[in-house]
Every structure is written in C-alpha cells, then in structure tokens.
C-alpha cells in the first residue's frame, strides 16, 4: 500500500527537516516553505494528502490565513490540519481551533509524541470518512428504494386508466416546486425542507382511491353522465378511507397522515366549491391545496382518453380564469413563477439515482418523447425498462440496439448523421483505454449539448456515433453539424493538453428510408475521413439519389 501523504508547511528548513526525519519512515512527506506555496500544492493535488502540519508565523501567507482558506473551501473534509508552532499562547491555540484546526502540537517536537498524535489523527479521520461514506451509501440506497416504490405505485394506479404512468411522477415534481416557491413567498405555511419532501412523496398516493372505480367509468372515452361523475368523485374519500384502514401505528406516521389529507381533499377548491367536504380557504390543508393545483395542471397538459393535451399557455389561462375551480391566489402566483421549470424540466422524469455524471446525461434525454416512435407504444408496465435496454453503459446515451429496433425499419426520419472519432486507435494506444473511454464520454456529452431534446444520439459502436434528426431545415442541419465538429475540435482533455480531438462527420438529408439515409451518411463520413476533421453532407430528394454534396 502507498504511504499516506503529509504536507509540512514551515518557513524554517531545519524545522521541516526535523519533522520529515521523524515522519518519513512511515509517511510520504512533502514540504512547503510558506502558506502560499502550500495552497498552490493543495489546489493541484489536495486529495493526495491525508494531513497538513502547519506553522503559524510564516512569510507570504501565515498559518491562520492558510487555515481560513482551507476551511472556507472545505478542503478539510478530506484531510486534517495540525498546527505546529513555537508560539503556544492560548489566544493562538484557540484561534487555530476556531478556524478548523484538528489539533495542535507544541515545540519542541518529541518524536514519539509527534508520531503517535499523527497516526491517531489519521486513523480517526479515515474512520470518520469511512462512516460518512457508509451513511451516504445507505441514504442513497434508501432513496433509490423509495423512488422505485413510488414508480411501481404510479404504474399500478395508472395502469388501470391507461395513462402514461408519468402523471404521478409529474404531480410529485410540480408539488415540490410549488412548495419551494410558496415558502419563499410567505411564512404562513411553516414548511421545512423535510416537510416539502414528505408532502411531495405523499402526493404520489393522491389517486389511490381510483382503484375502486370500475373500468367502464374510469376509462370512458366520452363525456361522463352526472351519475358517472358522482362515482368518479368517490375516489377521494375512498382513498382516504383506505389509509384509515391501516394499522394504527402506520396511520400515525407523518407520511400516512399527510397522504390521507391529500387523498381526501385534493379535489376541494379554495372557494368551497370542491368535493367531498366543500372545505374552503385554509380549511383545506396546504398539502392538499398544492397537490390539487399540480394535479389540475398536469391533467390539462396531458392527453387523456377523453381529451387532447393543452399547451402550457392554454392550461395556465384556463387555471387562472378559474375554469378548473378556484385556487389559493398565492399558489397561483407560485405556479406562474415556475413556468420555465414546467415548460422545460418537467418533461424529464427519469429517476434521480446512481452515477451522477452519467445521470446528468440520462436526465437530458427525453426517453418518453423519443419512445413515442416505438412500434409498441402501449407498454405502460415496463416504461423504465427501455432506459436500461437502450442505454450505452459507458456514455449514458442510446446504444445500437435502440437504433436497430426503433429506427432501422422506419421511413419517417428526415436526416441521419454518422460521426467517427479521428485517430481513436492512436488515443487508445498512446494514452490508454481509460483515456479513450473518457474521450467517448466527453464526446457524447458535447454532442448532446449541441442537439435538441427531440433529436437522438446513439453510440453505434466503438468510436462511431449516429445522430437522428427530424423537423430540421436543411441549412440549420448543415450548420449544426459544423457546430458539433468545431465544438469537438476545441475540446481539451484534463491532464493531456496536447491531445487534439477531431471527428469526421457525414450527413444524409431527405425523404428516403432510414436504411438509405444511413448508407449515404456512412459514405459521406468516409469522404470526410480522407481529410479528417470535416463535415460532408448529401441532400437527397424523392427522385434523385443526391442533388448536392459539400
């Protein structure tokens, strides 16, 4: 095992050497002769160090300044700082502790004491870090399971009425955003972060009562009769009663309490014209008020068996005009203020878990919209399955299976692009496969950032990517490819500044089959490959094979 690394910061060469002499048998010792030099070393490789021995009185930047800097940027999360000084006045010692020092060693140095103090500190720090890691892992595992349970529940409840399964997840997100805005606006509803999280989680249960409604009524495509509507209306009370039927100790948990309120009162309206109890104003618990608004907004903007989807603007107008009943005016204000989030982010409801960087990429893919191309669009019960099936595990973008199964035999794609990394073998051979992988990940991220949510990027194999476009004007298509090429050409890889990335791009545009477009794009890519770092596009029309090559 590598020795742990210690940084000694002291302006006296003799003192540094003395400490190094005591420590270098067991540790890897690095020296800095003033505070500024220490900060420079740490800013480059702070994660390498387990401990910092810091003198107080030094030129350039003294020990207190170094401590304050380290503490400000929370570098001491990963290493401990022990002060070493000849000045052992209580004021100095207290100040050092206040600034985040872990311990204080007085001069003169006693080798046994120094060694013991340091090894104990290291042990304690390592143990603390290990425990923190365990807690974080457990927390995420718990979160993962909670989210999974909620998505399963969403599918069960919504499976029956043939809806997307995403309604519950979206209501949950809108509820969270509305509540976060609400607490910024008013202190009338004293909600902590934990309360907000609790309410948004409980919101997933708002429609559980619907399982008691018969299929004929629940999934009736046309307008409901008054009698049928009365049946639908029972779902709120039924849902609340289902929760009331839970064993007493479960009923008393905060989540069940909040969920009961939401189930029962998420169809109440602010003016008292809702159901089942006709509560008005703040008689309706805030959790139910918020979920009611989130529910209405999402119902309006989604397609249902009895209606088309309204646009965000239309939905907002209908809500603000009171067409869906009266809501708390402050909440309406909050809804208006989260317009951007509603329009952009809420389309994406992939679960938040797992590897952060890959997750970022995954989150930027709108699977559900893209999967509307699917041959079998009614597989509600395994909606998340395609994410794993169709995802390239290295880059987080689509894999070849996705292309083969979803596009290969279709004829409604406007343009296909084949993109190949120049000299990829050279990168792997000279910098190792690890660097090759990083390059592919960065490229995937860069390409994703250049395309629209409705376009798709696929890792076709090795270092070859395929891009699919629809509804894009010819000149915009060409410009986009040029932009991708130039973006990639400007990329630098951390630690390998000399590595110049480039790609050869071939595009095919026009009303042809996917197979044909792919073949032409592939040929164009090979044309670009002759000179490398090029874009070659072929525009095809109905009759001719190609009308323009650039």
């Amino acid at each position, binding site marked *: 095992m590598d020795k742990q690394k210690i940084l000694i910061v002291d*302006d*006296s*060469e*003799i*003192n540094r*050497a*003395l400490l190094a*002499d*005591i420590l270098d048998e067991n540790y890897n010792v690095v020296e800095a002769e003033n505070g500024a030099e220490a900060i420079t070393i740490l800013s480059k490789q702070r994660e390498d160090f387990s401990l910092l021995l810091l*003198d107080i*009185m*030094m*030129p350039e930047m003294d020990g207190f300044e170094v401590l304050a800097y380290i503490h400000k940027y929370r570098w001491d999360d990963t290493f401990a700082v022990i002060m070493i*000084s*000849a*000045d052992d006045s209580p004021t100095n010692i207290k100040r050092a502790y206040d600034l985040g020092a872990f311990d204080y060693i007085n*001069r*003169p*140095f*006693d*080798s*046994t004491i120094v060694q013991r103090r340091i090894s104990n500190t290291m042990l304690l720090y390592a143990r603390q870090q290990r425990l923190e890691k365990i807690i974080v892992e457990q927390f995420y595992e718990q979160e993962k399971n909670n989210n999974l349970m909620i998505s399963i529940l969403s599918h069960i409840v919504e499976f029956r009425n043939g809806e997307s399964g995403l309604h519950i997840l979206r209501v949950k997100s809108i509820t969270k955003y509305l509540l976060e805005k609400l607490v910024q606006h008013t202190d009338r509803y004293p909600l902590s972060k934990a309360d907000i999280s609790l309410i948004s989680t409980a919101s997933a249960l708002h429609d559980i009562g619907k399982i008691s409604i018969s299929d004929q009524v629940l999934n009736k495509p046309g307008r409901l009769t008054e009698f049928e509507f009365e049946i639908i209306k029972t779902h709120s009370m039924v849902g609340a009663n289902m929760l009331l039927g839970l064993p007493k100790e479960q009923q008393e948990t905060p989540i069940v309490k909040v969920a009961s309120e939401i189930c029962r009162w998420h169809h109440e309206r602010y003016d008292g014209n809702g159901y089942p109890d006709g509560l008005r104003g703040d008689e309706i618990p805030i959790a139910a008020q918020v979920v009611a608004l989130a529910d209405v907004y999402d119902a309006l903007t989604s397609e249902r068996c009895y209606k088309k989807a309204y646009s965000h603007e239309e939905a907002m107008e209908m809500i603000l005009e009171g067409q869906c009943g009266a809501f708390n005016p402050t909440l309406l204000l909050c809804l208006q203020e989260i317009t951007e989030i509603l329009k952009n982010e809420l389309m994406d409801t992939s679960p938040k878990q797992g590897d952060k960087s890959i997750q970022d990429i995954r989150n930027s893919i709108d699977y559900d919209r893209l999967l509307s191309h699917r041959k079998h669009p009614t597989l509600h019960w395994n909606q998340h399955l395609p994410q794993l099936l169709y995802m390239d595990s290295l880059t987080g973008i689509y894999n070849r299976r996705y292309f083969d199964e979803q596009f290969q035999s279709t004829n409604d794609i406007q343009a296909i692009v084949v993109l190949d990394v120049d000299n990829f073998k050279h990168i792997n051979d000279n910098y190792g496969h690890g660097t090759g992988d990083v390059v592919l990940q960065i490229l995937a991220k860069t390409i994703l950032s250049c395309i629209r949510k409705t376009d798709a990027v696929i890792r076709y194999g090795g270092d070859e990517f395929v891009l699919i476009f629809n509804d894009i004007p010819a000149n915009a298509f060409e410009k986009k490819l040029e932009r991708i090429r130039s973006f990639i050409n400007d990329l630098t890889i951390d630690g390998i500044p000399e590595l110049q990335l480039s790609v050869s791009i071939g595009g095919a545009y026009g009303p042809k089959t996917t197979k044909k477009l792919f073949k032409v794009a592939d040929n164009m890519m090979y044309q670009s490959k002759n000179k490398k770092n090029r874009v070659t596009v072929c525009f095809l029309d109905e009759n001719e094979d190609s009308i323009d090559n650039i």
Partner: protein
Amino acid sequence: MNLKDCYLKLGGDFDEVLGRLQRKQTVQKFAYKFLDDKSFNLFEVSMEKKDYAEALRAIHTLKGICQNLSFTKLLESSTVATAALKENDWNKAIDMIQQLSEDYYQTINAIKEYKKSQEE
C-alpha cells in the same frame, strides 16, 4: 569532544534533546544543519534596516529551532527578543542584539569545534 560536551559548551540540554529525538545521529545531524541556518543573519540584517516585522519572523524561527534542539542559552535570549518585538518594544530588541550575538556565536563555535573534533 563528544556531543554532550558540545551541548555543555553551548549551554544546551543534551539529555533533554536526546530524550525527544531518541538518536544521537539525529541530534548531531540537526546541530550541523544549524550551522547553515540563516535565521540569525536575517534577524541582524532586518534589525539594521528597521524591518521589525521581518526581524520578528526571523527571531521567532530561531527560537523554534532552539526549542527543538534544546539550545537553552540561545533559546532564552531569542525568547526575550521575540517577546520584545511582538510588543513593539524596539529599544529592548535593539539592546538584545549584543546578548543574542554572544549566545549565537557561542552555540555556533561549540558545534564547529565538535564537528572538527569528529573529522580529525
């Protein structure tokens, strides 16, 4: 001349330093290193230039080294000078130069003499 005699001559505490650093070779190595240390010189030059902040840093460093090497006599005078400079008592610091210089050279000369005896 052995190392203990050297410490006796420079007014230090050999048993104390050996107790802490544990090995005679280590004590000797750092005593030799002290011959090259520039702190005292920096202190003198800074005092002359009336750069008291720099003088304080230098004498403070010297004090730390003397603590570590148990150079008791030089430690005492450098402690007094450090305190004087910390309290902005320039005159007292200036008065200390003479004493410091005597103690410093007593230390240096004892080490040099010891070193020479080892080389013979």
